[in-house]
C-alpha cells in the first residue's frame, strides 16, 4: 500500500487528545526533591557573599548550593559551529564571580515540596555590586572579563570581487535594519527529572528533547560519568522550536543533585523563568550596502551585522551568526558578496537558535533590500526579483559559501517557476489592482512578498534499528527526537511503504539513548531527510530479506512476489498462497535452514550519511490593511508557497507551514523581549510578551510543490520545518510599506501600532 504522500492522520495523537500525555511535569519518582533556581535580579554586577542562613532554616529545605559548590563542574560547551574565540564566553551552571543578565542562576534550593523550595529561594540574599551594562549589540563594546571585550568574535564570509562591484555600480543602496529580540515559546516549559538507578548504576534524566544523544554525552562528561553511566529519556514534548532541549544550566544542576543528594530531583520551569532563562533569539542589527546596475541587478552586497548574543555563548556558539552570513544571499545571483557578523555579548538573556535561525533575520534584510532596489529603479517588487533570481540552468548552484561545516550548494530548484505559481494562485495582477483601487478610496492596503532559500537535512549521519517480531510488529528505533512535529507518523509511513508492512503494526521510537547508540536529534529541519532516508534504506533491506525467505517458503521465484500490508504473495494473486512478515520471522529463527549464513529474524541497523544539506525554497505573499485611526494591522491574505521536493505527509507539511507562519507573524507584529536601560526585562509574562493567538491569525493558504526533488537522498525530500516562518517579517514589512505608501518605512521588527502611529504622523507632517 502507498503511504508516502498521503495525509495519514497522526498516529501519536490519541494519548495527547485524551489527556494521557506524559510531559516532563507528569513524571515523578518516589522520594523526589524539588529544585528551585535563585536568579540574579541585576543585569550586570560583581557577585559578593550570598546569605543562606534564613533560607537554610526554612522548613523542608534539603540543600542550597551557590557557585562555590559547583566550581568543579566545567562550563557548558558548544554543540554546533564551535569557535575557539567564543570559549571564554561560555556559561557555568551557577554564576561564579559575576552576573551578566537578569535571570542568571546564582543559587539553587532543594526542598521537600515545590512550595517550600520557592519559599526558601525567596530569602536567599546575594550582594551584587552593579557594573555598567551593555544593552544593545551596536552599543560601544564593554568589558566581559578583565582583558576581554564584549565582542567575542567576528564571522566573515565572502566571494567575488566586492570592491569591483561597488566601482561599477550605477547606484549604491544603504539600509540599516533590525529584527527584534523574540524566541520560540513552547506550550510546555522546560523540565528535568533526574535519578540515579543504583541497580544499573545509571543516571537517568527524563524530560529530554531535541538532541538527547548529544546531551547525554555532554552532561555525563561534565559530571565525570562514563558515557554508559547515563541515559536520557524523552517523553511527550510540547514544542521545541530550537530553544527547547539544549543543555542548559538547570539540566546539569538537576543531574548533579540526583548524584549528590542520592534522591530523585525534579525541576519544572515556570513561565516567568522560561521567559528569562531559556534561549532568546533574533535581535540582529544589519548595516547593509548593495551595489546595483541601472536595471536593478545587484552586483554586490556588503553587510556588516551585529548579533546580540546576550550574557553568555551557549550550545549554539556561532550558529545563528554563521547561518546569517551564509544564507543572506538567498535565491539571487549576487556575483559578489561580503559579510561580517559581529558576535556581541550584552547583559540580556543568552540567545540561541529559533525556527529559521539567521534566516528570518536575513530574509527580512535581503527582501527589504530587494524592495529598495525595485523602488530605486522604478520597477515592481516582482520584476526586481525576476531580474535577480538564479535561473534554472545554473542549478545546482554553488553559493561559494559554507555553513555548519558544509558547502552551500543549492541542490535543486526552479525559482522562477515557484514564484509564477504563487502569483497565479493569489491572482496577483487582480490583487494588485484591487489594492490600488482601495487605496485610491483612502484605505491603507498593501501587498508584500518575500523570497528565500531554506536549508535542511544537516548530516553527517543518522542511524535506525528496525526489527520485525513474530507477530509481524515492526519496531523502528531512531536517534531523533519528537518535539511534536509528527515524527512517529511520517517515519512510520516511510517504513510501511518501503517494507510493505501495515502502518498500524509499526512503532517508532525516539529520544531513548539506551535503545540506540547514535542519534543526531531533531533540529535544522533534518529528521525526515536524514532519519527518513535511513528508514528507507533499512526497510528496503528487510523487504529484500523477507522476499528471499518467502520465496523458499512459498516455492515461488522472488521476482514474482510482492508484499502488501505485511502479507507476501504472488503478484496479482490475492487470495492465494501467502505468508506474513511474522511467518517469515518465525521461519528465520536461530538454527533455521533458511538462514543461509545470515543473522536470524528480520532486523537491521541502517545508516544514511550526507555531506551536504538540501535546500528547499519558498515564496510568501501577504496583504495587510491598516486602520489609520487605531493603527492596528490586519493581515487580509497570506500565502506560503514552498517546494519541499517530496512530501511524505501533506497534512503535516501544511501544518508545519501554517504553524511556522504564526510564529513568523509573532516576530513581525507582536513579540518582543523589551529591556530598559538598566537591563531589566519588561516582558516577563504573557501580559507583556504578546504572542498572536488564534483570533489574530489570518487564514494562511499554502501551496506545496514537489517540482524540485532533492538528488541528495533516496526519497527526494527536503525539510518542512522552517519555511513557514522564514519570510513573514520580510513580507509583512513590504505590505505595510505599500499600505502606508511609504517605501522603505519599515526598518525594524516587530511593527506595533505605536510604530504605525509615528509613521503616519511623519507622513502627515511631510
Amino acid at each position, binding site marked *: 500500500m502507498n503511504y508516502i504522500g498521503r495525509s495519514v492522520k497522526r498516529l501519536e495523537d490519541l494519548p495527547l487528545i485524551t489527556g494521557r500525555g506524559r510531559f516532563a511535569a507528569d513524571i515523578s519518582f518516589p522520594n523526589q526533591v524539588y529544585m528551585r533556581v535563585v536568579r540574579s535580579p541585576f543585569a550586570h554586577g560583581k557577585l559578593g557573599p550570598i546569605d543562606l542562613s534564613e533560607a537554610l532554616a526554612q522548613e523542608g529545605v534539603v540543600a542550597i548550593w551557590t557557585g562555590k559548590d559547583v566550581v568543579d563542574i566545567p562550563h557548558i560547551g558548544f554543540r554546533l559551529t564551535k569557535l575557539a574565540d567564543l570559549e571564554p564566553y561560555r556559561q557555568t551552571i551557577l554564576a561564579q564571580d559575576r552576573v551578566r543578565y537578569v535571570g542568571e542562576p546564582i543559587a539553587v534550593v532543594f526542598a521537600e515540596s515545590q512550595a517550600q523550595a520557592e519559599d526558601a529561594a525567596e530569602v536567599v540574599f546575594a550582594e551584587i555590586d552593579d557594573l555598567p551594562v551593555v544593552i544593545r549589540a551596536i552599543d560601544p563594546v564593554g568589558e566581559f572579563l578583565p582583558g576581554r571585550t564584549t565582542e567575542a568574535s567576528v564571522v566573515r564570509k565572502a566571494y567575488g570581487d566586492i570592491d569591483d562591484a561597488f566601482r561599477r555600480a550605477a547606484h549604491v543602496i544603504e539600509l540599516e535594519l533590525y529584527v527584534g529580540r523574540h524566541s520560540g515559546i513552547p506550550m510546555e516549559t522546560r523540565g528535568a527529572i533526574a535519578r540515579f538507578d543504583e541497580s544499573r548504576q545509571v543516571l537517568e534524566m527524563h524530560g529530554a528533547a531535541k538532541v538527547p544523544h548529544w546531551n547525554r554525552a555532554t552532561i555525563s562528561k561534565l559530571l565525570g560519568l562514563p558515557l554508559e553511566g547515563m541515559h536520557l529519556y524523552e517523553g511527550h514534548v510540547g514544542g521545541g522550536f530550537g530553544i527547547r532541549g539544549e543543555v542548559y544550566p538547570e539540566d546539569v544542576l538537576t543531574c548533579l543533585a540526583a548524584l549528590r543528594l542520592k534522591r530523585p530531583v525534579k525541576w519544572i520551569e515556570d513561565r516567568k523563568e522560561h521567559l528569562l532563562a531559556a534561549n532568546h533569539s533574533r535581535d540582529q542589527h544589519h548595516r547593509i550596502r548593495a551595489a546595483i546596475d541601472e536595471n536593478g541587478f545587484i552586483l554586490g552586497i556588503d553587510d556588516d551585522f551585529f548579533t546580540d548574543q546576550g550574557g553568555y555563548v551557549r550550545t549554539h556558539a556561532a550558529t545563528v551568526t554563521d547561518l546569517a552570513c551564509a544564507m543572506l544571499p538567498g535565491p539571487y545571483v549576487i556575483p559578489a558578496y561580503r559579510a561580517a557578523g559581529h558576535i556581541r555579548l550584552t547583559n540580556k538573556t543568552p540567545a540561541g537558535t529559533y525556527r529559521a535561525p539567521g534566516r528570518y533575520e536575513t530574509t527580512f534584510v535581503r527582501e527589504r533590500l530587494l524592495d529598495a532596489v525595485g523602488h530605486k529603479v522604478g520597477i515592481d517588487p516582482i520584476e526586481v526579483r525576476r531580474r535577480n533570481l538564479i535561473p534554472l540552468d545554473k542549478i545546482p548552484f554553488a553559493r561559494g559559501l559554507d555553513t555548519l561545516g558544509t558547502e552551500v550548494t543549492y541542490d535543486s530548484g526552479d525559482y522562477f517557476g515557484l514564484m509564477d505559481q504563487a502569483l497565479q494562485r493569489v491572482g496577483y495582477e487582480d490583487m494588485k489592482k484591487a489594492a490600488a483601487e482601495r487605496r485610491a478610496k483612502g484605505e491603507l492596503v498593501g501587498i508584500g512578498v518575500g523570497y528565500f532559500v531554506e536549508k535542511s537535512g544537516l548530516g553527517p549521519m543518522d542511524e535506525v534499528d528496525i526489527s520485525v517480531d513474530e507477530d509481524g510488529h515492526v519496531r523502528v528505533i531512531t536517534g531523533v527526537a519528537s518535539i511534536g512535529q509528527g515524527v512517529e507518523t511520517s517515519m512510520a509511513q516511510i517504513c510501511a511503504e518501503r517494507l510493505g508492512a501495515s502502518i498500524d503494526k509499526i512503532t517508532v521510537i525516539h529520544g531513548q539513548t539506551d535503545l540506540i547508540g547514535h542519534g543526531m536529534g531533531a533540529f535544522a529541519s533534518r529528521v525526515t531527510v536524514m532519519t527518513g532516508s535511513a528508514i528507507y534504506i533499512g526497510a528496503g533491506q528487510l523487504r529484500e530479506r523477507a522476499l528471499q525467505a518467502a520465496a523458499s517458503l512459498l516455492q515461488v521465484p522472488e521476482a514474482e512476489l510482492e508484499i502488501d500490508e505485511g502479507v507476501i504473495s504472488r503478484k496479482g494473486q490475492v487470495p492465494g498462497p501467502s505468508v506474513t512478515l511474522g511467518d517469515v520471522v518465525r521461519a528465520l529463527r536461530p538454527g533455521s535452514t533458511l538462514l543461509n549464513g545470515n543473522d536470524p529474524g528480520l532486523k537491521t541497523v541502517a545508516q544514511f550519511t550526507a555531506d551536504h544539506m538540501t535546500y528547499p525554497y519558498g515564496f510568501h505573499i501577504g496583504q495587510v490593511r491598516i486602520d489609520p*485611526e487605531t493603527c492596528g494591522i490586519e493581515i487580509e491574505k497570506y500565502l506560503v508557497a514552498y517546494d519541499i521536493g517530496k512530501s511524505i505527509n501533506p497534512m503535516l507539511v501544511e501544518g508545519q507551514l501554517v504553524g511556522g507562519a504564526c510564529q513568523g507573524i509573532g516576530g513581525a507584529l507582536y513579540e518582543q523581549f523589551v529591556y530598559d536601560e538598566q537591563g531589566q526585562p519588561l516582558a516577563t509574562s504573557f501580559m507583556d510578551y504578546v504572542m498572536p493567538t488564534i483570533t489574530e491569525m489570518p487564514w494562511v493558504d499554502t501551496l506545496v510543490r514537489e517540482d524540485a526533488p532533492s538528488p541528495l537522498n533516496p526519497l527526494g525530500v527536503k525539510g518542512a520545518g522552517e519555511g513557514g516562518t522564514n519570510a513573514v517579517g520580510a513580507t509583512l514589512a513590504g505590505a505595510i510599506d505599500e499600505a502606508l505608501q511609504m517605501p522603505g518605512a519599515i526598518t525594524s521588527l516587530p511593527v506595533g501600532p505605536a510604530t504605525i502611529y509615528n509613521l503616519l504622523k511623519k507622513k502627515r507632517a511631510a
Partner: protein
Amino acid sequence: MKAPQFAYRAPRSIKEAVTALAESEGMGKILAGGQSLVPTMNFRLARPDMLIDINRISELDFARPENGKLRIGALTRHAAFERPFFEGPLARLLADVVQHIAHVPIRTRGTFTGSLAHADPASEWCLVACTLDAEMVAHSLEGERIIPAAEYFVTTLTTALTENELLVEARLPLLDDSWKHGFCEFNRRAGDFALSMSLVALKIENGRIAEARIGIGGVEDKPVRAPDAEAYLIGKTGEAADRVEAARLASEGIQPMDDMHAPADYRRDLTRAMVRRALERALAR
C-alpha cells in the same frame, strides 16, 4: 509559581466574612473569581496573610432588576451578562461589553464586583460603573456604606473601600428605552486589556440628545468621564460633525498613560477614535 503561605477562610455569611476581614488586620484579601488575584499571588506580587473565600456565601449570589436599579451581587460571574436576562437597554449594553472581557474561561469564573474591587484601569466593568454612575455597596462590622462611582475609583488598583470592607453589591441604573449605548475598544489581541476604550450612553428625546454619558477607560489610572464632550452633545442630533467634535473634546480632556505598548500621544489620538466610534455605534442603534 507557588503562592507564599496564607491562611484560608471560607465564611458562609457576609457577617462571617467581614468578621474575618477585621481579624486579618488589613492583611486579608477577598477571593471571588480569583482571575487577577491568584496569578498575582503566584507571581508573589500579592502576599495576603489570609484569603477569605466568599464563594460559599449564598446571599451574595444574585443579579436582578429592582426599584429602577440592576442589583449585582458579589458572586455574579462575568458570563451571567452574555445573554440579556432582563428587559431594556442596560441588559443589551452589558451583553455587548462583556464580550470584550478576557476569554471565555475567565468570564465563567471572574465576577463583576471582583473587577470593581480590583480596579484595573482597563477594566470594562469599571468603565461601565463610572459611565453609568453605579453605586457600590460595602459592608463591614460597622454596617453598610454606599459609595457613588465618582468617589469610588481612586487610582490604579485602589478604590475607596477600606481594608475592613467587603464589596457586596454594585447597583446600576436601569435605563429606559430612550437610552442607546455604544462601546468600542482597541487592543492588540482579542481579550487583552484595551489600550483605550470608550462607553457611551445617550438619552434621545425627539431626535435630539437629552443626556450624554461618555466614559473612557484604559487611558488614565482609573476610568474617567468626558464632561466637556457630554455637555457639548446636549441638544445636538449627533450627526457626523457633532460626533467628531465630541470625540475631539473628549480626547483633549484626558491625561493618557505612557507605557511600552502605547505612548501617550498615540493613546490620546486612539481615544478620539474610540469615542467617535462608540458614538457612531450608539446612534446607529
